[in-house]
């Protein structure tokens, strides 16, 4: 078999992936993690718990190798011990990591209190016999360093990070100096460090046999298994690997893993570099500790069968921490399937169910766990019982889960807490109905447990159950305040919320839900009125708006600044209730969303004396009143009636999806960045799992009504200027309706084939405009402003 592997990224070139969102997505937050992985007994193994967001568990995103509980520098601690804590850590750091060979030599030979411009500080301990030996060693170590370290800032580029190459004479000279030093030094620890330097030097210079020889002849006889011993062993393992002695390399790496926790991640990285270690590595392992670590690392590979490796570890050593690590990882994998947050866009949800392969895997885990729990030699019985209980919960055996979990009450507080989480999760999952009794238990649980992810699970499931039992108000409040209704104005939810907020004797959980929204009744009346406005029932709307304070305002524009990553709040064009301009009855020839109202809405007909009842700035109640009055006027076949119809045409067009005031009925503070209308699936899922992602978007357009009013105006009025305006505005609706009917993307058609948009059958009203009103002033005005018309006329 050739020792070359195809680039892993070949997988990626094989298919294109259109669907992926570009935003940051957390795998670890996409599910409800209810079983605490940190229950494992050996905290040193925490980095090996399951995470998909970081390279290692609890690893810092920007610097994955760093871990909170490994902030202590084991090497520096060894040095600290060496000097009997007589040198402050800061000075020690400089001495060991920062100082240069020249600095150290000057320091040593001059015996100065402080070398000028140096960070080295005088300490008596440094000039004791032990101290002087240490300085001698450090000078040698730093001479070797340049051959061992790659440049820190290379970011993986080999042209920047190439390790300095060592020539044979250089190697011989350096090794000789090392040999002499080793012979001279009296201190056993420093001898060990020197031997380590020689092993590393040989390994990196490519003299693998020498590396092994130095280890055997210089390291082993010292019988000193402090930290540098493992550093040296790791180097020897590297040399063995280069010599293709994989079994021996594996044995040494595993010993380093078990003996030097600070090197665990590095050792695993070595295993990752080549499958040869796993593949050929098991043969020379002798102790159970070595073998269990080996199986753990093999099971740690994301694609492995964790359960198979767990079985091997169990057979060897049922109490091995490695077994716990794999156990919690495998559990976590199934949680990611079973407790994945339900998607708002999919009708079929498998929350709490999972797919067939996950369920089959859970069965395998349960079979093994049953054996472990019944083994009388198991020390952490409660841990395994809580594990067993949780497996039952994930498998849907809620009664078993609850009874096993409720039976746990030992000395391990964390395990007891886990049992409570599992018991409650199982209790909730099996509740047929969420009634007052259940609400009482939910409330008391939430009151005593504050973990975010459990809380998320509780609301996810409770909201779903409420929805199933048609408790729309409570289902809604599990995840929303009233703004969750802006996009749908769903009447069945609004009505139930009114009843819910009016209910006098709310229990504790209901009070918790109702606290989601302050001053709820006012907003509910506004929402109900707006619902009717949206459905063009101004009389009904008026009933509810009359219960709302006339000067109500609540919407703000949130402006996000990408550079400074800050969000500021300011007044938008619409405050939610009371600042609607009378220009909602106006129009423009070519209004842009980003134009000011004055610039976009230039038509002045709404200002004529017969419309003086329209206030310049209205609240929604006044708007409803104006609509009622205009509708009444529009019934008359007079010039006033024609103009009232024209104003209504403007209103319905302006509040439609392409209209300048499209934001008003969707509670958006501005019409430009109108997030609720675009970029999301427009129709709510017919059977949502719950209202976690809001209540969906319900579009109600009255384009046909607008069109009919414009056509009526043209028919009734005797003034050609007004007729021309009405026909031109109606022709915009022709375009909108044409595009809406087509099954294609507007932009695509627009850029690909603009002719479609100017065709006679697409815009028949352009024909009428040209034929009947080409002598109007308005016709001249639009011709110079509207390219569509110009194109149409010229063709």
């Amino acid at each position: 078999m050739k020792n070359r592997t195809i680039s892993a990224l070949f997988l990626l070139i094989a298919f294109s992936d259109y669907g992926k969102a570009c935003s940051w997505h957390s795998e670890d937050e996409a599910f409800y993690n209810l079983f605490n992985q940190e229950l494992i007994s050996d905290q040193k193994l925490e980095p090996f718990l399951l995470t998909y967001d970081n390279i290692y568990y609890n690893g810092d995103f920007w610097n994955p190798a760093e871990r909170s509980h490994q902030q202590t520098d084991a090497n520096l601690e060894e040095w600290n011990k060496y000097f009997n804590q007589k040198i402050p850590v800061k000075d020690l750091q400089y001495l060991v990591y920062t100082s240069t060979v020249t600095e150290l030599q000057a320091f040593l030979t001059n015996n100065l209190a402080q070398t000028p411009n140096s960070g080295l500080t005088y300490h008596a301990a440094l000039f004791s016999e032990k101290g002087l030996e240490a300085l001698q060693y450090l000078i040698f170590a730093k001479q070797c360093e340049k051959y061992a370290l790659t440049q820190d800032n290379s970011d993986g580029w080999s042209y920047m990070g190439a390790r300095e190459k060592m020539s044979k004479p250089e190697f011989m000279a350096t090794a000789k100096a090392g040999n002499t030093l080793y012979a001279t030094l009296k201190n056993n620890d420093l001898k060990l460090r020197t031997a380590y330097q020689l092993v590393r030097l040989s390994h990196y210079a490519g003299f693998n046999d020498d590396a092994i020889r130095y280890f055997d002849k210089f390291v082993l006889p010292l019988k000193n298994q402090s930290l540098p011993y493992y550093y040296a062993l790791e180097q020897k393992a590297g040399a063995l690997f280069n010599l293709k002695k994989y079994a021996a390399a594996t044995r040494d790496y595993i010993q380093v893993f078990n003996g030097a926790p600070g090197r665990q991640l590095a050792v695993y990285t070595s295993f990752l570099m080549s499958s040869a270690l796993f593949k050929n590595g098991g043969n020379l392992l002798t102790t159970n500790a070595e073998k269990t670590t080996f199986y753990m690392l093999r099971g740690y590979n994301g694609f492995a069968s964790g359960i198979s490796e767990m079985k091997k570890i169990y057979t060897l050593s049922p109490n091995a921490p490695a077994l716990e690590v794999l156990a919690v990882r495998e559990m976590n994998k199934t949680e990611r399937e079973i407790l994945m947050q339900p998607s708002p866009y999919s009708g079929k949800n498998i929350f709490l169910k999972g797919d067939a392969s996950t369920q089959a895997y859970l069965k395998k885990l349960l079979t093994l766990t049953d054996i472990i729990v019944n083994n009388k030699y198991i020390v952490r019985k409660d841990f395994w019982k809580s594990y067993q209980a949780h497996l039952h919960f994930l498998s849907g055996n809620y009664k078993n889960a609850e009874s096993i979990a409720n039976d746990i009450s030992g000395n391990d507080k964390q395990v007891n807490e886990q049992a409570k989480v599992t018991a409650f999760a199982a209790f909730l999952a099996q509740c047929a109905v969420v009634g007052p009794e259940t609400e009482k238990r939910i409330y008391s649980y939430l009151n005593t447990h504050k973990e975010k992810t459990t809380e998320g699970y509780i609301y996810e499931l409770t909201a779903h159950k409420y929805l199933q039992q048609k408790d729309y108000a409570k289902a809604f409040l599990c995840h929303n305040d009233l703004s969750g209704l802006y996009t749908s104005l769903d009447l069945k939810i609004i009505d139930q919320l009114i009843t819910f907020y009016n209910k006098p004797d709310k229990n504790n959980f209901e009070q918790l839900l109702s606290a989601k929204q302050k001053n709820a009744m006012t907003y509910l009346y506004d929402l109900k009125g707006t619902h009717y406005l949206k459905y063009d029932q101004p009389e009904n709307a008026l009933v509810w708006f009359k219960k709302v304070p006339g000067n109500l305002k609540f919407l703000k524009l949130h402006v996000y600044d990408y550079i400074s990553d800050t969000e500021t709040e300011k007044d938008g064009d619409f405050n939610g209730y009371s600042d609607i301009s009378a220009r909602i009855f106006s129009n423009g020839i070519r209004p842009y969303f980003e134009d000011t109202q004055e610039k976009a809405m230039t038509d002045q007909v709404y200002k004529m004396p017969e419309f003086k009842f329209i206030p310049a700035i209205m609240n929604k109640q006044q708007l409803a009143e104006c609509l009622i009055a205009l509708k009444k006027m529009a019934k008359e076949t007079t010039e006033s009636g024609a103009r009232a119809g024209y104003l209504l045409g403007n209103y319905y067009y302006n509040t439609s999806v392409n209209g300048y005031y499209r934001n008003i009925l969707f509670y958006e503070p501005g019409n430009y960045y109108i997030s609720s209308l675009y970029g999301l699936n427009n129709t709510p899922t017919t059977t949502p799992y719950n209202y976690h992602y809001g209540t969906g978007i319900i579009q109600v357009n009255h384009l046909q009504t607008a069109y009919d009013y414009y056509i009526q105006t043209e028919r009734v009025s005797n003034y050609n200027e007004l007729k021309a305006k009405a026909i031109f505005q109606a022709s915009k609706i022709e375009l909108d309706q044409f595009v809406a009917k087509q099954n294609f993307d507007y932009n695509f058609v627009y850029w690909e084939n603009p002719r479609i948009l100017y065709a006679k059958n697409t815009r028949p009203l352009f024909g009428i405009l040209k034929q009947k009103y080409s002598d109007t002033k308005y016709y001249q005005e639009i011709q110079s402003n509207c390219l569509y018309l110009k194109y149409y006329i010229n063709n």
Partner: protein
Amino acid sequence: MYRTTVKHLYIFPVFLLLISCRQPPTEPSFYFWETYYKIDSTEKQYLQQLHVKKLYVRFFDITIQNRRPTPTGIIRISEKNETQEIIPVVFITNETFKALDKDDIHQLAVHIQNEINYLYPIISDLPLQEVQFDCDWTTSTSQQYFYFLQTIQKLLPEKEISATIRLHQIKYRKQTGIPPVDKGVLMYYATDNPLTAGDNNSILENKEAAKYIKGLARYPMKLDVALPIYSWAIIENELGKKRLLNGIREEILSDTLLYRKTGKNTYIVRKEHYLQQVLLYPDFRIKTESICTEDLISAAKEIRKQHKDTPYSTIYFQLNETNLKHYSIQNLNIISNP
């Protein structure tokens, strides 16, 4: 009128004949896509007998790690190639361009230029002629990717810059755009996603691929063509997660103690064992995929038809002894000269 038509009918086939007679057979080339560069004896034999003049060698990949573009899988070169012209290929994930602004892209281009200049002399003594980029860019990343290509062109002014073009980028070229490079390579494979393909062969379904290249002749760039000679196994673990294992064909899975055959090219693992570098456990599922010579001939004919009279070279993906032994030198010659 009548006479002219006849004359045209008469002249046309002769014209075609002349063209095909005059065109010398084009020698194919290969992609080398592994992380350790060494050419073994079988591979050398194929290169020699097919008179291969160019070898497209993947130098490294660029991925996003910790939100920074990072080189991965940098090639380790164990010998110099003294026979073929080496064309460094750099694969860049589409995700990379989603994360970069203009300055980042410029910086990335400089890094790539330096890395190529560092690696190239290790593999070849000939002057560097061409550099190829491989990225499955989409509408949302085309601006960034094309800006990158323009930048690298400025950094390597004397060199030819080429880019791979996927099937969807041919068909939807108005949306995805045309990369600003000297020439392209049409990747005539990967018609499906291997992880979700179901019963289809995700490497190449000729009928599917043909639908994508109807407008090939109108693509405004010189295009060579890459054809698949690779095979792989799609392995599914107990939790339904899948991964690919390269170089696996059905005959490797003939041991009935290790595998139970469940369909034409599907298996279930019976016993824990290593298949190449991957440890397989009982209950893991396997599906193998490869392309037979006949399918490659049909593919080549379809491409010839759509490419009209334009000459092009064939590049096989990818050079590896285990792939080569399933295709004779003679057949590879026929496929590259349809």
